[in-house]
């Protein structure tokens, strides 16, 4: 292990054997501790990954193997039958389409609203700036269960019930506080001097924003958009309350869960899992930016 730090013990004289022994003992201690940390790290990693591996095994087994007992830890033979069965079940394609539509619309709306808001919070001191942040955080703390029931009734009265775009509005409202704070932290990390320099060289403030700040902030904005997509894709309570025949994928699956067979359930879980895995991979660098900001 080349990176490991040697214990910081002053080597008084390498000739004295007592110091040597002590040093060796300390080294062994460090190695043991390091091994312990690795053991803990790997144990936790297995704890996180094992259920995902098991569900992937189920999803890639034939329906007969899924029903078999005892179950194997590897799919044998590997087959797409379960996933095909799930995807061809009634309403799944449509529900997936609804889910993607809702999530994309929520991403577009919340990004369009959050970019100017986040920029204003990051760059300008205005009266009530802290109050705005606080109010947004309090919205984030509001239980979705509490919001969804009255909203469903309002949508019924307005004739907007059971339409995917109203669910997208709900998801936008839910994710907007997070998105605004994340994007404002992204803008805050772009040095103001860049913008000033652009203006010195003759850009209008808008041009400076569009040509200098925005390109630098784009990866962070993309990360927050992905986060919004994942939140909307996963959200189930508001979805199941606000839609009836145009259910999103999680709402459709949850609503029919007690009538579903095991192969259907496990394939459904795997299909819903995959986008999350991919998206978290892409935004992993930005996780701490996001939550570090919200922490304050």
């Amino acid at each position, binding site marked *: 292990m080349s*990176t490991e730090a040697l214990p910081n013990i002053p080597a008084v004289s390498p000739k004295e054997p007592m110091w040597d022994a002590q040093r060796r003992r300390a080294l062994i201690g460090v190695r043991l501790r*390091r091994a312990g*940390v690795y053991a803990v*790290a790997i144990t*936790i*990693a297995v704890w*996180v*990954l094992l*259920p*995902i591996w098991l*569900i992937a095994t*189920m999803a890639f087994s034939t329906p007969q193997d899924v029903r*078999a*007992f*005892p*179950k194997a*830890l590897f799919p044998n033979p590997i087959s797409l039958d379960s996933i095909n069965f799930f995807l061809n079940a009634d309403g799944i394609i449509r529900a997936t389409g609804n889910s993607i539509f809702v999530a994309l619309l929520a991403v577009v709306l919340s990004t369009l609203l959050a970019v100017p808001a986040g920029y204003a919070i990051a760059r300008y001191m205005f009266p009530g700036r802290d109050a705005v942040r606080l109010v947004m955080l309090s919205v984030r*703390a*509001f*239980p*979705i*269960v*509490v*919001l*969804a*029931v*009255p909203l*469903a*009734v*309002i949508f019924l*009265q*307005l004739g907007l019930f059971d339409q995917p775009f109203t669910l997208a509005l709900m998801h936008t409202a839910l994710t907007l506080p997070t998105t605004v704070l994340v994007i404002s932290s992204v803008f805050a990390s772009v040095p103001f001097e860049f913008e000033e320099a652009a203006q010195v060289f003759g850009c209008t403030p808008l041009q400076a924003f569009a040509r200098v700040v925005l390109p630098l902030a784009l990866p962070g904005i993309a990360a927050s958009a992905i986060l919004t997509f994942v939140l909307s*894709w*996963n959200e*189930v*309570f508001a979805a*199941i309350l606000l839609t009836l025949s145009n259910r999103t994928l*999680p709402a459709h699956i*949850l609503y029919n*869960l*007690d009538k579903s067979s*095991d192969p259907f*359930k496990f394939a459904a*879980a795997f299909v*819903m*899992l995959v*986008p*999350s*895995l991919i*998206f*978290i*991979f892409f935004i*992993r660098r930005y*996780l*701490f930016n*996001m*939550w*570090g900001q*919200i*922490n304050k």
Partner: protein
Amino acid sequence: MRPSLPHFHCPYLQPQAFQLAFTREGQSLSLRAEALPDASVTGTLPLQTEVRVIDRQQLDEVLPNGATRPVFWYYVSGTDANGATVEGWVNQRSLFIENRRTSETARVTGGEAVREWTFDHLNRMLADFRFGTAVSTTLLLMVLIVPAQFVLAIIMALVLQSQIRGSGLFLYIYAIPLGISDLVAGILWFAIFTQRGFLNSLLVSAEIIELPFIFIQADHMAWMIAIIVLAEIWRATSIVMVIVVSGLQAIPRDYLEAGEVFGASLWQRLRHIILPLLKPSLQVALILRTILAFQVFAVVIAITGGDIMTVLSNETFRWYDPARFNNPSVAAVYAGFIMLISLAISLFYMRAVRSQEEAVKA
């Protein structure tokens, strides 16, 4: 007089929720000072009230085609909802009366739609036999899940901070559940603990037990709670972990190094340096997780089906669901109840932390 509300649709969430929870649509008959439809109101009577007819008037009503027909107005006296005797004129349409010309008594059968205050929905929630179990199960889950999540999250964060090789990979792995929905997490753990699931496969193959053990059934409440707790710890610890890690990164390295130089053990450093400095982050995470713990929903349904075990959000959905109770009012009471508990607990946390700080200062 019973206060009645104007009949309106409120497009704002909180008033709408309040209106749903504490009002109901009813009918009541307005008594008029004169035998005219828009004369001033002298009192209201609830439906089905027996009234005494004191006086009557026969008027002619003009129909759209120009013809006229006789219409009776009655001066009636009856007892309103508060027990007071009220008198006034009413149109024959709102009464059931045997003989228009001679009967001395009548019964109120119609009136105007009104919204009235009511505690019916609240009482219905409180009287529901699932209410008590929903509250106790939700609280029990919260008490079991939240502390375990914090312990695990702090361990994860310390592991990531110890700068082992591959910590980037470990970070990604630990963050994976962040993107996984509660529904998926529920199904994953259902796959492990169901009767023909992986755990039973393991136990039977290893010949530890002969027959598969049924973890998920109504008389194994402790097992179902344990499975839900595992699933929630598995799924939602990453959020706490991310908050804790970003809090750890904000701690100046000097403090930790100072602790190490003076020979503090890991536990001592944790107890006297890391945890006190992490307190703001932990407080945020605690409030967030507690509020979310009251909304635990899809995990419970995916693992238990939502019938043999229930939680508050599940009850909200059951009362709202058009295919089941179809009663948004009781659902709104449940929602308000969840909000009140979450608010109370958040305030309690903040107060507790503040008084602790004051005690330290004093």
